[in-house]
């Protein structure tokens, strides 16, 4: 045992990091019952500390009381109806660049279509909160990711419908693009205004797009 390593040093080392035992401390403990007991007590305290830090997250699932209210991304029933009654009628073709960008984004995340299990409410909330939007939907969301798009972070969601998955991108910053349907490569979609911005809904060509779109829009609360 080093002459310089006394009980004070031992307790500092134990209290600082009870899981680690230096050779000096080891040697000291071999001759000091009081410090051995101190270490045993500190290890027991640490077990309690670990349990104390492991808070139940059930309580965290409730909305935080001080969180700022999210802006609601409401889809007016009349807008939905107009789109659906219009059937295949093209309102205005969205600027090709926007449709191309949406499809390009979707194309680069092929895994987004592969999910089966709904994402956690926490992840979905985090993705939506970053955009400051509220998007209530009854259908399961199987993919949720905050994605860079045209200089903004936007929620990229994939919603599972009875007719297959649909991608929904909430484009709050897209305010002046014409609404309308588009076909780009293997994908079909629609850009429509919602809330203060727009949303883009994209399906693969082999899907019943109108049916799936209706499922999504019907599912919006």
């Amino acid at each position, binding site marked *: 045992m080093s002459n310089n390593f006394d009980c004070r040093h031992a307790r500092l080392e134990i*209290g600082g990091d009870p899981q680690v035992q230096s050779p000096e401390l080891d040697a000291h403990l071999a001759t000091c019952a009081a410090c051995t007991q101190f270490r045993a007590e500190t290890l027991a305290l640490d077990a*309690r*500390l670990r349990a104390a830090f492991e808070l139940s997250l059930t309580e965290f699932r409730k909305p935080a009381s001080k969180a700022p209210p999210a802006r609601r991304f409401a889809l007016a029933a009349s807008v939905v109806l107009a789109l659906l009654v219009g059937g295949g009628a093209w309102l205005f073709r969205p600027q090709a660049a926007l449709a191309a960008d949406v499809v390009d984004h979707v194309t680069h995340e092929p895994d987004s279509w592969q999910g089966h299990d709904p994402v956690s409410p926490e992840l979905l909330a985090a993705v939506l909160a970053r955009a400051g939007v509220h998007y209530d939907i009854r259908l399961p969301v199987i*993919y949720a990711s905050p994605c860079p798009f045209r200089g903004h972070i936007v929620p990229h969601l994939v919603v599972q419908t009875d007719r297959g998955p649909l991608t929904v991108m909430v484009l709050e910053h897209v305010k002046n693009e014409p609404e309308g349907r588009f076909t780009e490569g293997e994908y079909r979609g629609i850009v429509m205004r919602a809330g203060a911005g727009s949303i883009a809904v994209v399906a693969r060509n082999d899907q019943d797009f109108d049916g799936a779109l209706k499922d999504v829009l019907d599912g919006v609360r």
Partner: protein
Amino acid sequence: MNPRPRGTTAPSAFTRLLETLRPDLVRFAFWLARDRAVAEDVVQETLIRAWKSRDELKDTAAARPWLLTIVRREHARLYERKRLPTVDVDQVEALGDPALASDGDAGLEDLRRAILQLPDEYREPLVLQVLGGLSTSEIAAELKLTQAAVLTRLFRARNRLRTIYGLPPAEDAE
């Protein structure tokens, strides 16, 4: 067309990784901020920042400390940006948070309240060590302190909590 960032981790795999680690990030942020709403804001910002910087994470095994570092920085940035007032330890809102409750274990709840009342300079290294799993040298690097200073702070943090646990405090390390 916009160029999209491409990382070593596929986007969907990275999303799953974030989802897996999120509970620990929320806990970590809560113990730092002592306020649930602030903790949730911090974690949301952390997830976004992590997503944007995902190319920097070369080894997913290092994801946890990497994310904890981002949480710490986002927490500091939040206070800097919003100029949130420093809260007196007796007025910490989280002291009444139902998340502190522990079924049938009042001692654990007392310990949680005692941790919340530790000064920041003691609580932060303790959270990094016990919850974050960082070594004292890693904490020293994270907090820009010497390892000796970290050891002293951790010793004092535990020393204050010993009394809550019904143990006599040790002589101070000064």
